[in-house]
């Protein structure tokens, strides 16, 4: 049953990603990966990432594995930095996320073209500005997501009343 939930969430995430990319080039699927990282079981996380990124590779006409590679590198970077800066829901934690998300947007602009055609993409100041804004929006999403996640009751505490 949880696998079904994960597949359904993946489908919704894919459609939301396509919608938001058409609207403002916002990478929702990746942000959701960041937000869910270390919150759900690694098996579900793996299913979610692999299925979603492969489907998105086909939709965006990327070489299969491109999205997964970008997500993997970004999460690896997040893990690396979290050895120095603690990965928590506080200002340093969100700053680390901001840097990782920004680097992800930068790599999205360069790596898919590099893999597909071997060409480097020219990065302009306007593109950097857009990336910063999108990274800030992504961090805001993570912030809201973390807050909502913390409000959810744990399975074994379902019958307990929440203390204000």
């Amino acid at each position, binding site marked *: 049953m949880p696998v079904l939930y994960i597949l359904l969430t993946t489908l919704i995430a894919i459609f939301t990603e396509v919608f*938001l990319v058409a*609207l403002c080039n916002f990478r929702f699927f990746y942000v959701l990966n960041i937000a869910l990282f270390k919150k759900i*079981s690694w098996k579900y996380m793996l299913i979610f*990432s692999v299925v979603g990124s492969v489907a998105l590779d086909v939709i965006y006409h990327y*070489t299969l594995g491109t999205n997964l590679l970008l997500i993997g590198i970004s999460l690896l970077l997040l893990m690396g930095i979290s050895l120095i800066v603690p990965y928590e829901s506080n200002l340093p934690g969100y700053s680390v996320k901001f840097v990782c998300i920004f680097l992800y947007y930068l790599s999205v602009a360069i790596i898919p073209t590099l893999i597909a055609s071997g060409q480097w993409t020219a990065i302009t100041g306007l593109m950097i500005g857009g990336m910063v804004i999108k990274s800030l929006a992504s961090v805001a999403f993570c912030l809201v997501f973390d807050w909502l996640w913390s409000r959810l009751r744990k399975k074994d505490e379902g019958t307990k009343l929440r203390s204000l």
Partner: protein
Amino acid sequence: MKNENNSEKHSNIAVYISLFLAILLLILDSLGSFAGIRKGISFVFEPATFQVNAVGKKVNEYFQVFVHLGEFQKDYNALKVEIYEKEALYSSYSILKNENDALKKQIALGNQETQYVMANVLREDLVDAVLIDQGSDVGVKQGDVVTVGNTFVGIVSSVDLKGGTVRLPSDANSHLEIVVLKSGQSNVTKAGILSSGVISGSPEGIKIENISMNSDVADGDTVYINDSKVGGFLALGYVVGLSSNPASTYKTAFVSPILDYDNLMQVFVRVE
């Protein structure tokens, strides 16, 4: 604490597996091994994502309108300036056309012996008089008749070097003799005159008095000025609001002027 460390450790394993799978997929797809899988996924997702993409782009277009609101404002202001320029140009054409029409009427009068001075009407808040921009320096003097073609406008009541005031028939001090002709009759002959009378200005309008009780004057008949001060027949307007009091010996009526005095732009002063 132990569980948390395990979960973190396993999450790290998921990242390593993801990276390994990504590299594997990249290599195999580059070799063309996943063509079938690509087609399958494409077959399932493309129609739905196409629709979602279209919706996203449509919403984006709406947002773009807000983004480019400043440019639209600039365009709007530029268009406004352009419209003002066109309006200014049009009004200058309008003045020229008006002058042309007035001159045509004056030429059609065919009276070559009398001298006329063309004057522009100046705007003023006067109700029963108009100001003109020609004065005694061009020979305009008090008592001169002002016309447009064969239509009576008024009589110059005061004049200075560069301008003058024309008293309109609606002025309370204006008293002129008139004749009434059957409507549609343009030639003034003794036989065609239905009645004579006197017009004078009143708060209600230009009032005709002394219309003979036995005359066949009706609403719509034409009123011509026939006064020694004017010297000749000049059209004024049409009879309206004809009323007769059985106890009185004459009828009264009002004149609806041919000319709209508020919109006069050029007039001709008959210089004797």
